[in-house]
């Protein structure tokens, strides 16, 4: 059985991981690249997983939120995502293509552009507000506004499309 994940953790380009798991009596054999591991499950309760991996006892905390998988191990939290129809997009990648996404969940306080107008690089287009902070959304390059996807007063999620320019 193969499990696939993308690494999120805010990395601009997701990495792909494939982990093979085969049941072996009460235990499992895990395959990652050309490495093979022996996995014994010692405890699995309320999202706390304790395993013996090639003889070493390790502890993890785990939680799931839709397609996202949160794993804590040894002082670090990791966010993995099951590849699916709702795999998220990345602000920096999209901005290069003219799709300006919201950097954080926020409320739209001001929309200063309309469809069809020309904007110059660095020009403020939208002002967002969250937790009383003002975030100016500026044009990453000069161009024509193809689409304004939000209106004043509305709330937006992180990575939601705000404006498209070309």
């Amino acid at each position, binding site marked *: 059985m193969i499990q696939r994940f993308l690494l999120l953790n805010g990395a601009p380009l997701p990495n792909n991981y494939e982990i093979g798991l085969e049941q072996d009596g009460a235990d499992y054999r895990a395959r990652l690249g050309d490495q093979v591991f022996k996995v014994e499950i010692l405890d699995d309760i309320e999202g706390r997983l304790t395993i013996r991996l090639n003889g070493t006892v390790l502890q993890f905390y785990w*939680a799931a939120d839709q397609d996202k998988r949160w794993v804590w191990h040894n002082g670090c939290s990791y966010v993995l995502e099951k590849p699916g129809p709702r795999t998220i997009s990345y*602000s920096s990648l999209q901005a290069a293509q003219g799709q300006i996404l919201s950097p954080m*969940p926020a409320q739209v306080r001001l929309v200063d552009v309309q469809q069809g107008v020309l904007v110059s690089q660095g020009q403020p287009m939208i002002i967002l507000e969250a937790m009383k902070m003002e975030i100016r959304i500026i044009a990453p390059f000069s161009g024509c506004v193809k689409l304004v996807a939000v209106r004043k007063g509305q709330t937006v999620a992180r990575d939601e499309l705000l404006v498209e320019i070309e």
Partner: protein
Amino acid sequence: MKIFDKILIANRGEIAVRVIRACREMGIHSVAVYSDADQKAMHVRMADEAVWIGPAPAAQSYLNISRILQAAVESKAQAIHPGYGFLAENAGFARMVRESGLVFIGPPTEAIQAMGDKAEARRRMQAAGVPVVPGYQDEDDNDSLLRAAHEIGYPLFVKAAAGGGGKGMRVVNDATDLSGAIGAARREAQHAFGDDRLILEAYLPRARHIEFQILADQHGAMVHLFERECSVQRRRQKIIEETPSPCLDDRLRAAMSAAALAAARVVEYTNAGTVEFIFDPHQHRFYFLEMNTRLQVEHPVTELVTGIDLVQWQIRIAAGEHLPVRQEQLVQRGHAIECRLYAETVENDFLPAVGPLLRFIEPAGPGIRVDSGFTSGDEITIHYDPLIAKVTAFAEDRPSAIRRMLSALSSTVLLGTPSNTHFLVEVLKSDDFQHGRVHTNWVEEIFQGQRAPVSEPAPAVLIAAALKEILSEKNPKADSALRNIDPYSPWDLNDRFRPGGPQ
């Protein structure tokens, strides 16, 4: 002397919880207030009573003065503790609380007013001989500001006269940026404080932020409880605070504490307050920055090194009790460091994040104190400050306190929302922090551009994740922390779809 029977806490999150704990220890009934977003919040669960005060937006709930006063009167509370933020430094609120016949647990209304106005505070400090940052605080039309800026020189700060907490504040590097910064600061100030007056202050880029805790009773007694070093900041907000400061010697400590007491006396201060200074370590000079007329977020470090419970003393002072200690009885014992755990995306310019706390396991152990406003199952929402918890480590000296904090942070489990936990570890481990060589711009200078997210997961992490996919499918009941495994469930969609609605 009669202490109160019942106190209403006009706040939420960790500070409401902190005040409720103090009330409980003093045998005082606590009344929480809450908005629609906080119906099941920790402060509501912990208080003896809870009163709904309005919808989620703060303006309609935690900033709704008449509704909060009504809640206090109806619940028969005798006093109101404002916490920090929201209405804590709102002189109008303090006045109305007192006019309603209730006790406001804080300083006199006039002191809040004088110190809340940065222009007025600068004038009064100058008159009292307390050094202020070179700057300008008079007529604030754009032309006057432009002229004054020319005299002060760049870089400089444009600040909202009514501001605080890093809001309505802009750094300006040269004259061409000034007009834009004035416009933005005015808008932000008007929006956040309903007052768009501005002041200018010279910007000292390599300076440190050092503040002194003041405690004064209503009978003329006033002490300082030493300093807090708060130079580790991002987005102009503190993330790590400690005491004693690694850069003060006894001579400087004496000079700054004397200035802090003088500043507080100018406004006839009572209750707990904090005088903030900017300290230029190269010239060994300090300047008054502002006075916060309330309890500070970072008050635990002071409590740990002095053994004084600041919140309980706020309540006792408000009830008319005398200060229990004289200045010469106070000592700084050991070293305390506080780290603020924020829901935020470090790699995304430290912008706040939201999300459910699917799992939150607080650190514990000798010398570790946690002030938290949330537990597993709670949610960090867009409406309020994203502070999740404060972790404070207390030890005999600074290196031990740093090691203790590192151990605490590495045992903190937080799943469901991005947080700055790992970033705090990086800061604590850095050479500059360990040698006490930080300044208020240090985080931006050192971590800008190299905010690599957490490194590649070890094979063990990937194997555990893969294994859990199989195990939780076999036995879904084993995971109550598992929020929702069905990605297609319509109940968990984030969009604005409403059945029968327009979209």
